C-alpha cells in the first residue's frame, strides 16, 4: 500500500475563499493510503515546497497529492520538488481545486464537497501510480538539409561551423536556388551572385558538408534524434569525379530545343548543360528527354568530345540511405502560374513578363547578356509598366489570399535599376499599397520615387491588350479618379509566390503539418517560428511563409541554432507516459498499429512461455521514443494488453469510481 501525503493549498484566498481547506484536509486524511495531510497558504512557494520535502523525508512518503491550481500551471514545479526530495517525479498527482472548483462555484458547501471529491479522485489515482523514468534515445550527430537555396546553404554552414556533419539534398543539378537567378538584391543593391557564390563555394569545400545535388528525398522514417532517410541520387549520365567542368560537351551538343529553366525559358539550352557558370558542383547533366542519344540511340557527340571521358550513358539512379538526428526543411518557393489571370494576357504577349523573368533579362549572365530588351523583337523598351499584387491578396480563388511580402521591394529595386541605367525610359508602377516594413526599406522605395522619378500610380490594371506592337495597359488611377491607358513596351507582373511543389508530399513523409497554402506550419507562430510541431523537424526560409533574403538568412541561422542545440545532446529524454504492451495478453492483431498516428508500434515474434510451454507469438512492441502517449491504441485493444503509463485503464477506472462513490 502506498504512503501518500496530501497537501491542500489555500492559494492565498483564491481557493480558501470558497473552499473550506481544513474540511478537505480532514476528509482526505481518512482515505486509504493517506498517511499525512496538511494545508498551507502557498504550496508552490519556497515555503510550501520545503514543507513537502520535509514531509517526504519524515513520513517516508511514496507519493504526494497536491490540491491546488491546474496541473498545467505547477505540475512541473511539484515534480521538481519531488525529485529534490528523492521521490520519483511521476508519483505526484494534482487535484485542480482552483480553476475547476473554487473559482467557478460560489456556494461554499458545494465547492468544499467537490474539492473533497477531486482530492479523493487524485488519491485514488495515485494509489495505482508506478514510478516512471523518462526513456532515452541516442542522437545521431548529423543533420539533413532539404533544399539547396540560400536558406539551406546558410543553415548547413552554421551547423558545419558547430562541427556537426550536414547533408544538403538539392533536386536541381546545382545549389543556389532562386537567389542564383537574381540580378541585384534589395535594399543594398549588391549583386546576388557576389554574395551567394562565396557561400556556395564554402558549402562545397567545407569538409562537414556533403552535397547531394540532382537528388530527392524519397522516404523518411524514424523519429527525432534518429531519422532514417532514403535519398534518390538521379543519374546525371556524367561521372562527376572525372569531369573537370570544361563545358566542351555543352557547346558540341546538337539538340538545342530545350527551354533553359534557369533563364525562365527565355533562352534555349543543350540537352547536356550546366545551369549557370558558377554552378556548384560545376558538372553538367544530361536531360534524357532532349538527348538524341537517349531518344534515338544515335549522336553521342558529347562523349566523343569529352577530354576526360566522363560521359556515361549507362549511369543509373542511386538510392542512398542515411541516418540523421535532425532535418531542416528549406524547400523554398516558386512564382504561381498565371493561367487564371488572362486579363494581363501573359501567355499571349511575350512582352508581358514576370519579375523573375525580368531578373534574368537584366542579369549580365542572362539571355540578353544584361541588356534590357523586349523579348518579342529585342528592341530596347521606351515605356515600362509594373503591376503589383498579381495573384496576391486574392480571395477569389484565382490566386493566393496572402501578401507575398517581397514584391513591393523588388519592384522598387527593378524600377530604380532601370531608371539608373536607362534614364529616358518611363517607368510606371500600379500599386494597391507599397509595403516596405524593413530596415532602410522605405528610404529605398522613396529614393526610387524621389531621385529616379518612378511614377507610382495608386490603382490597379484592369486589362492589358496588344495593339500593333504596343501593349495598351488599361488601369484605374484612384487618386485622380480616372481610368488611364498607357502604351507600354513591356509589362512586368509582380507575381505571387507559393511553396515549391515538393512541399506537400515532403510534409506527409515527415508527418509535419502543412497549411492549405502548402506552407509548413510552425510549432507556434510567435514563440517557436522555426520548429515544426513534429519533433526534430525545423523550418528555414520561404517553406514556412513568404519572406525576403535578410529574414530567410536570419531564420536559417535560427533553425541551425535549434539543430545544434539538439545535436549537442548525447541522449534525448522522451515523455515517459507512453503506451506499453503486455506480451502475455497481446493477440498480435495489428489493430493498434492501424490507429497509431506516429507509427510507433511494430510487431515482432517472440518466445513466450504460456501454459507451461514455450511458444513463438507475434506481439506488439511500442517504440517509446516515438510514442507521444495519446492512448488511441489502448482503446482499440480488446484484450487490454495495450495500456498507457501514467493514465492506465485501472487508474482511470479508479478515478471514475472515486467520483461516483
Amino acid at each position, binding site marked *: 500500500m502506498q504512503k501518500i501525503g496530501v497537501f491542500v493549498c489555500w492559494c492565498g484566498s483564491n481557493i480558501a475563499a470558497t473552499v473550506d481547506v481544513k474540511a478537505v484536509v480532514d476528509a482526505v486524511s481518512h482515505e486509504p493510503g493517506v498517511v499525512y495531510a496538511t494545508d498551507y497558504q502557498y504550496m508552490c512557494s519556497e515555503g510550501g515546497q520545503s514543507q513537502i520535502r520535509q514531509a517526504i523525508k519524515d513520513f517516508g512518503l511514496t507519493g504526494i497529492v497536491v490540491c491546488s491550481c491546474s496541473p498545467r500551471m505547477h505540475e512541473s514545479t511539484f515534480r521538481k520538488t519531488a525529485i529534490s526530495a528523492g521521490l520519483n517525479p511521476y508519483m505526484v498527482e494534482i487535484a485542480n481545486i482552483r480553476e475547476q472548483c473554487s473559482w467557478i462555484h460560489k456556494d461554499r458547501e458545494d465547492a468544499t464537497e467537490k474539492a473533497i471529491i477531486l482530492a479523493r479522485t487524485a488519491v485514488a489515482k495515485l494509489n495505482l501510480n508506478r514510478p516512471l523514468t523518462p526513456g532515452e534515445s541516442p542522437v545521431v550527430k548529423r543533420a539533413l538539409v532539404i533544399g539547396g537555396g540560400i536558406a539551406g546553404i546558410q543553415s548547413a554552414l552554421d551547423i558545419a561551423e558547430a562541427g556537426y556533419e550536414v547533408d544538403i539534398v538539392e533536386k536541381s543539378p546545382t545549389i543556389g536556388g532562386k537567389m542564383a537567378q537574381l540580378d541585384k538584391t534589395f535594399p543594398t543593391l549588391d549583386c546576388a551572385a557576389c554574395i551567394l557564390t562565396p557561400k556556395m563555394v564554402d558549402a562545397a569545400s567545407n569538409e562537414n558538408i556533403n552535397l547531394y545535388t540532382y537528388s530527392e528525398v524519397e522516404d523518411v522514417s524514424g523519429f527525432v534524434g534518429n531519422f532514417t532517410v532514403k535519398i534518390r541520387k538521379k543519374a546525371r549520365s556524367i561521372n562527376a569525379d572525372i569531369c573537370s567542368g570544361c563545358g566542351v560537351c555543352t557547346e558540341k551538343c546538337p539538340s538545342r530545343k530545350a527551354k533553359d529553366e534557369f533563364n525562365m525559358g527565355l533562352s534555349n539550352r543543350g540537352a547536356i548543360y550546366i545551369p549557370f557558370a558558377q554552378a556548384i558542383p560545376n558538372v553538367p547533366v544530361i536531360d534524357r528527354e532532349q538527348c538524341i542519344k537517349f531518344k534515338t540511340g544515335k549522336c553521342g557527340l558529347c562523349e566523343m568530345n569529352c577530354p576526360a571521358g566522363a560521359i556515361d550513358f549507362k549511369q543509373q539512379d542511386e538510392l542512398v540511405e542515411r541516418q540523421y538526428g535532425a532535418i531542416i526543411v528549406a524547400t523554398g518557393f516558386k512564382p504561381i502560374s498565371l493561367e487564371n489571370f488572362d*486579363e494581363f494576357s501573359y501567355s499571349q504577349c511575350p512582352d508581358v513578363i514576370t519579375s523573375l523573368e525580368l531578373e534574368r533579362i537584366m542579369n549580365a549572365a542572362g539571355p540578353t547578356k544584361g541588356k534590357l530588351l523586349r523579348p518579342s523583337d529585342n528592341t530596347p523598351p521606351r515605356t515600362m509598366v509594373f503591376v503589383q*499584387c498579381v495573384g496576391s*491578396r*486574392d*480571395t*477569389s480563388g*484565382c*490566386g493566393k489570399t496572402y501578401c507575398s511580402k517581397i514584391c513591393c521591394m523588388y519592384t522598387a529595386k527593378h524600377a530604380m535599376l532601370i531608371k539608373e541605367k536607362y534614364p529616358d525610359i518611363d517607368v510606371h508602377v*500600379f500599386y*494597391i499599397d507599397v509595403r516596405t516594413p524593413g530596415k532602410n526599406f522605405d528610404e529605398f522605395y522613396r529614393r526610387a520615387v524621389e531621385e529616379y522619378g518612378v511614377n507610382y500610380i*495608386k*490603382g*490597379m*490594371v*484592369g*486589362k492589358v491588350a496588344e495593339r500593333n506592337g504596343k501593349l495598351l495597359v*488599361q*488601369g*484605374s*488611377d*484612384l487618386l485622380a*479618379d480616372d*481610368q488611364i491607358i498607357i502604351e507600354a513596351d513591356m509589362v512586368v507582373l509582380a507575381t505571387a509566390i507559393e511553396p515549391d511543389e515538393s512541399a506537400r508530399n515532403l510534409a506527409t513523409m515527415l508527418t509535419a503539418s502543412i497549411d492549405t497554402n502548402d506552407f509548413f506550419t510552425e510549432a507556434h507562430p510567435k514563440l517557436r517560428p522555426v520548429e515544426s510541431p513534429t519533433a526534430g523537424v525545423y523550418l528555414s526560409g520561404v517553406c514556412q511563409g513568404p519572406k525576403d533574403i535578410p529574414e530567410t538568412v536570419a531564420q536559417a541561422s535560427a533553425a541551425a541554432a535549434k539543430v545544434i542545440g539538439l545535436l549537442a545532446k548525447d541522449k534525448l529524454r522522451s515523455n515517459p507516459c507512453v503506451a506499453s504492451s503486455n506480451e502475455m495478453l497481446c493477440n498480435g492483431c495489428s489493430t493498434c498499429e492501424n490507429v497509431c498516428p506516429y507509427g510507433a508500434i511494430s510487431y515482432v515474434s517472440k518466445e513466450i512461455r504460456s501454459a507451461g510451454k514455450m511458444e513463438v507469438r507475434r506481439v506488439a512492441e511500442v517504440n517509446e521514443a516515438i510514442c507521444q502517449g495519446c492512448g488511441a491504441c489502448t482503446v482499440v485493444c480488446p484484450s487490454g494488453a495495450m495500456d498507457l503509463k501514467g493514465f492506465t485503464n485501472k487508474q482511470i477506472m479508479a478515478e471514475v469510481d472515486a467520483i461516483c462513490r
Partner: protein
Amino acid sequence: MYTAEREMTENVLRISNVNTRKCMKCGKCSGACPAFDKMDIHPHQFVSMVEKGDIEGLMNSKTLWSCLSCFACVERCPRNVEPAKLIEAVRLSVIRKQGENRLKADDIPVLLDDELPQQAIVSAFRKFSK
C-alpha cells in the same frame, strides 16, 4: 437612429448580397470597366458609397443607367465584392419607388439596331424590364 437611409442601405445590401467591407480599395474594377468614361461615379466608388450609406447619391447618378451590366468588374475583382450587383440593387430601389413601368418583351424588336452588341441588348433588356 434608424433613418430611412439606413433602411435603404440595408435593402441594397440584402438584395445584392454583397459584403462591401470585403473591398480592399484596389481599383481593379474601375481599371477593367469598359463604360468608365461615361460614368460620373466610378465602380470603385459604388462600393465605398454603399458602405457609407450614400444610396441617394448613387440613385441620382448618371452611372446607374450607363453601367452595361457586363460584369467585368465582378469577373476581375480579387476580393469577390461584385460591384455590378450593387448597381442592380440600387436600380431596383429606384424602380420600386417609381412604381410600374415594365418594358414588354414584344416592344423590344422595334428599339433594336444592328450594331448593338449582343451583351448590350441583354443588359438593356434587364435594365428596362425591371
